């Protein structure tokens, strides 16, 4: 009985534990609403510099940079926001509008199956998946306890089937959660911030030029070498650029 009370109190404590420090965006939001984008950017950046990671913050900051016509930073913060909510409609509409304004053409052609898988993969947030992991685990444990304690063979059989089902769900949810967390913390993509960036075949300007890209383009990062980064274009072409010319998502 005492143990039950303890578990219940922990469950009710979860929301309290989730209450982290709050940050105020009202000054930045009202500056944006007054179309004072310069000030809005400063206010949002104040919060960003405190190390806050938040969807609304990144999305609003992306919008502010878009309005300031800084397409590189706009794309960077939109992509940062997309890490939180990759399927957010408003965000994706804004990214599509931004991609129409940047110089380099990027084609995103997803097949029906890819789109469907993406939708399933990103259907729940990382934290909701975490809660699913926890609950399916607890349910599995409860089923195991029932199996241990129960004497009815019929009842045991039903519980065994349910246990298998939940084990499968637990496995899928856990794998998805692990992959999503790995994606979330991966530093493997970046956005070009400089207006024009020349890529070389090696980590120095002495190497031959391989391609020229422009601000706002999303590239993937292969590896670092001092101040130079080996990037890869969506087309598969690779080249070395100066690390300061891009922002890591």
């Amino acid at each position: 009985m005492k143990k039950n009370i303890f578990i219940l109190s922990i469950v009710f404590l979860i929301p309290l534990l989730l209450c982290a420090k709050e940050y105020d965006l009202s000054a930045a939001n009202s500056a944006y609403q007054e179309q004072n984008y310069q000030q809005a950017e400063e206010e949002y950046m104040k919060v960003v510099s405190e190390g806050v990671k938040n969807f609304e913050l990144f999305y609003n900051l992306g919008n502010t940079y878009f309005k300031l016509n800084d397409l590189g930073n706009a794309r960077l913060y939109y992509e940062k926001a997309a890490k939180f909510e990759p399927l957010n409609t408003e965000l994706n509409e804004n990214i599509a509008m931004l991609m129409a304004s940047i110089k380099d053409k990027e084609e995103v052609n997803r097949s029906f199956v890819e789109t469907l898988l993406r939708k399933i993969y990103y259907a729940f947030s990382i934290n909701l998946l975490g809660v699913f992991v926890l609950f399916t685990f607890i349910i599995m444990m409860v089923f195991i306890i029932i199996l241990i304690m129960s004497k009815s063979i019929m009842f045991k059989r039903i519980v065994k089937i349910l246990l298998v089902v939940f084990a499968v769900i637990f496995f899928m949810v856990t794998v998805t959660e692990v992959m999503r967390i790995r994606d979330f913390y991966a530093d493997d993509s970046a956005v070009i911030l400089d207006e024009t960036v020349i890529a070389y075949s090696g980590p120095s300007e002495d190497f031959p030029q391989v391609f020229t890209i422009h601000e706002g383009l999303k590239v993937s990062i292969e590896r670092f070498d001092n101040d130079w980064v080996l990037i890869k274009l969506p087309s598969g072409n690779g080249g070395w650029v100066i690390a300061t010319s891009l922002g890591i998502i």
Partner: protein
Amino acid sequence: MVNAVYFADNITVTSYVDKSTVSLNELLNLTVEIKSDEQISAEPEIPQLTGFQIVGQSSSSSTSIEIINNEMFRSVTQSFTYSLRPLKTGSFTIPPIYTKYKNSTYRSKTINVTVVEENSNITQPRQQPQKGNDNSSNNVQIFLQATPNKSEVFVGEPFTIKYVLYSNKGLVGLNAEKMPEFAGFVKEETFQTKNITHTLEVINGIRYYAYRISNYTLFPTNANTFTLDKMELLCAYEVPAKSFFDFGTTKRVYIHSNTTSIKVKPLPVTGQPINFSGAVGKFDIKSELSSSQVKTGESVTLTLTISGSGNIRMFDPPTLPVIPNIDTFPPEESDELYQPDNISGKKVIKYILIPEEPGTYNLPAISFTYFDPGSETYKTITTRSLSLIVEKGKITPGSLSYIRPQDIDIQGLDINFIITKNSITGYTLVISQVWFWILIVLSLLSIIAILIIKKEREKLLQDKAYYRARISNKQLQKDLNKVQAALKEDDISGFFVAADNALKNFIANKCNISASASTIQDLTFELQKNELSAQEIADIIEFLKITDSARFGGIEFSHEELEEKYSELNTILQNLSKTKFRKKR
């Protein structure tokens, strides 16, 4: 004739001779024509003519009625013809001839006449038809005059060109051989002769029959210097009989118009407004609403009138600015051009507006830009803005605004607005929280706990001895409570029964034998199996014997003695509980 005073305003006096060169053996006819609206009594005053002698005089009068544009023009011409005989050769000037009527004096122009020696050939007309107008030798002068009213125009600026055939002989036939095409222009024929009619005109003192052939209004479409196409006519005139046997012949000549060229200048590029529609000329704009108050779904007509002179047919009407919630239809456009040259006129554009929402609308001013060739600048004229009051009308199925669903008016695209959530929290992963792992560990521990509990229970179920050993202390506590209760009440027999039970139960539980069925001998036997000293066993036996006898014997015990027995029991029990018993399975 009293009225003549009031109507005889348009009096013209013309004098002409029948030929400009006359030989000494010929007579020169000098005619003075007095043309007026009404019959008047006036006679020219012939001055003294040097070199000529008046040998005869005749007069005639004719009335002509002309209908132009449904208006009747009546004119009366009185001709006074004087036959003059030249007196000597040389150049002479017939001075102006004055005519007095009422209080005004009218004068004709001077005429130059050359008198030459007698030459019989001059009067002989040539036998062959001739081309061109060099018929002076046989005294037949025919020429076709093309007269544009401007020699330099801008692209789009209209001008007129008139073709008049002049002849000093009456023509009996006229045939158009080639009409001008005017490449590079949009042409409008504003007049074309249908029958041979003529007016009389005097050029350089010679009277000509003037035949108006055609009038054109031309609108240049591109800049260049154009030499206008020539018009070619075939004219026929009669050569009168010279003798009794000569019946006279009809002669035909081809006549070309003179060469005219027009310079068309391009419109200036500098200062050309974006909404310039191509209008060139001088215009005025006016807008009008058919009614200033309507109900929703009803239509109202906005009439825009552009009037003036210029290329009215050749420009596009100004576009109506988009008025939110007012539906417009493509405008209906009509042009009206005024006679005689079709240059001035008006363009009437009717926009049908259907307001869809009630309210007061300000119809924006419509501006129109044209090029003024006079000042060579672009001018923009604007209508005044009009207001329209729209009341809510009945929308019935079938009314115009009801049945037409329309596309949403998209004014522009912008990014989605920011999320106006003023308080945010930093991102924390659920799986990095302590409680997450606490719950995982707890649920794992609960499995282990359950397993342990289950094992315990199984042990208990299988091992009664173990159970009894475990419960012996509980039993003992219960039994000792009974003993204590009896001690308090000084119940001697109760005390010994309880003490006996307590000791026997304790030993029975420890040794896993039945307590009720055990005699002192049984107990001694069991106790001897375990590691107990002989003294201890002897003490237990002694104690049991006392209790047995006290239970039944009725021996009196004082309270102190009972307490002594109780402590004796406790000592025995303490000793027993320290001892390890072998478990009997």
